[in-house]
């Protein structure tokens, strides 16, 4: 019993290495052409964004519509730094500083707004993302509406997979810790959580800051791969796109977010051939999935890698 309750979870590292190795093989052998690699990059960035938003919205129950705002902070900071230090260390410094800047803004914004509930919080975070966008639109250093061009490109498969897997693993680790369980209990019932000694505001802010940090990482990768940034890239619709992935995959399921991101990437890649019908099909696919599975593809369940270890040993992990 004890061993069954207590998970070591080394499988995920093996799995991550395996995916990296396969990807690397495809890159080296040239199967992964530029077009596919750009799709893959978008996919990985979406995964990081969705997984980090899921921590805030799915696991902690705080409805946020401002994730694009955090992404843009990470993007601009990373761009500005790596344009001045156009080396790999400069790129890494940029990504990390961008993520920290996003986390800092998350803290400043989260402290007052996370006292709000439901719809009010959604509006407040939406407003925050708009303010951030307008700041970037008017700053000299970010070159206003024209944006930044010629950001040095350092994103290859190694960095992409490293950042993506680290984001997933760290957030999943957090959720399976006492701190993560405190966040989930707030989603379940805030009054009950407080009554067992959980400082709800503190944990909401913690989840918000961690989520903002990883959205910042995603922004940094975006800036460095697509080498140009404009404020319009980070509007309301991007926040919604991220939310769609989270809801589609299942509120409170990290593997759901990953699967949904992959699924949507596949759908939009296949629809590439029909540009005029693409958005229609995309929307119809969303509606159909939500009607068939309103709880999202995975509900709040996780796809457990332990299944690989022994089939038939079914296990339910809920939100923890």
């Amino acid at each position: 019993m004890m061993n069954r309750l207590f998970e070591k979870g080394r499988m995920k590292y093996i799995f991550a290495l395996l995916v990296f190795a396969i990807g690397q093989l495809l890159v080296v052998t040239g199967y992964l052409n530029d077009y596919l690699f750009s799709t893959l990059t978008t996919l990985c960035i979406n995964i990081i964004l969705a997984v980090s938003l899921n921590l805030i919205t799915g696991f902690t129950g705080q409805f946020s519509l401002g994730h694009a705002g955090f992404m843009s902070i990470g993007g601009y900071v990373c761009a500005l730094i790596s344009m001045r230090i156009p080396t790999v260390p400069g790129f890494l410094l940029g990504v990390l500083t961008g993520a920290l800047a996003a986390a800092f803004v998350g803290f400043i914004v989260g402290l007052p707004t996370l006292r709000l509930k439901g719809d009010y919080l959604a509006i407040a975070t939406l407003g925050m993302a708009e303010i951030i966008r307008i700041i970037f639109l008017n700053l000299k250093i970010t070159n206003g509406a024209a944006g930044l061009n010629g950001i040095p490109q350092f994103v290859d498969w190694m960095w992409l997979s490293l950042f993506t897997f680290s984001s997933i693993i760290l957030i999943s680790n957090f959720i399976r810790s006492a701190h993560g369980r405190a966040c989930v209990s707030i989603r379940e019932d805030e009054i009950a959580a407080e009554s067992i000694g959980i400082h709800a505001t503190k944990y909401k802010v913690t989840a918000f800051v961690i989520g903002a940090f990883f959205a910042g990482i995603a922004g940094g990768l975006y800036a460095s791969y697509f080498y140009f940034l404009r404020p319009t890239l980070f509007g309301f619709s991007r926040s919604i796109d991220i939310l769609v992935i989270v809801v589609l995959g299942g509120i409170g399921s990290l593997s759901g977010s990953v699967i949904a991101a992959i699924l949507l990437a596949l759908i939009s890649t296949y629809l590439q051939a029909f540009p005029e019908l693409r958005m229609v099909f995309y929307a119809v696919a969303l509606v159909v999935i939500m009607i068939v599975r309103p709880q999202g593809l995975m509900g709040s369940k996780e796809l457990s890698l332990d299944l690989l270890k022994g089939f038939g040993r079914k296990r339910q992990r809920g939100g923890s």
Partner: protein
Amino acid sequence: MNKVLDVRKLSKSFGGLAAVTAVNLHLNKGELVGLIGPNGAGKTTCFNLLTGIYEPDKGSISLHRDGQEYSLEKRKPHEICRLGVGRTFQNIRLFRDLTVLDNVRTAMNRTVKYGLFSALFHIGSYHREERELIEKSMELLKIFELDGKALELAKNLPYGEQRHLEIARALATEPALLLLDEPAAGMNPAETAQLTRTIEWIRKRFDLTILLIEHDMSLVMKICERVYVLDYGMLIAEGTPEVIKNNPRVVKAYLGEVAYA
């Protein structure tokens, strides 16, 4: 006798409705005290005031623990819990989509020492402390015969077991004072008898002081040493169950309208 809880002139109104008016009550260490009264008398509101869910309009609440005195009126619910006050809710408030184990384990968070960094990287004392948490939770669940259902979702437990789990979750916070809001509500006589035994047992085992709201008079008369009676937010009587039973005001306000077992 040393007091654990001392409440003076506690008042709370909602709009024009005086839900609790100038209530004085105290609990001595180790006592099991009942709080009774007809529907809408203000019992649950008292609990919500004691646990910081509402802020009192007037009055003081002081908690005595380890030779220290803490006033609770201005504190947040999580602080009050950390000072040693645990509670259950009249309409069960479990973490429904979490497992039985997680419900209890989350309530032990206060004992966790590892920080955010260890949580993110699963390093440091993470693995050791997590194992200890599981062991301690399973021990507690065993008392309520819930250890066999540790991995079931709370919402899938039968009603009686949900009530037990909520008590287990409150105990996991290591309270000195336990507030139970109608723990026997919705239980059949056999389940109530079982619950009565459990309450008496945990009281000794965990050295608890208990304040209990209950409509089931057989339970109150059987295990409570003293009883407070509320009516329209005001205390109308106080004393041993024997005395309360024969108090004409109580009979008029309360016992008269409830089938008395």
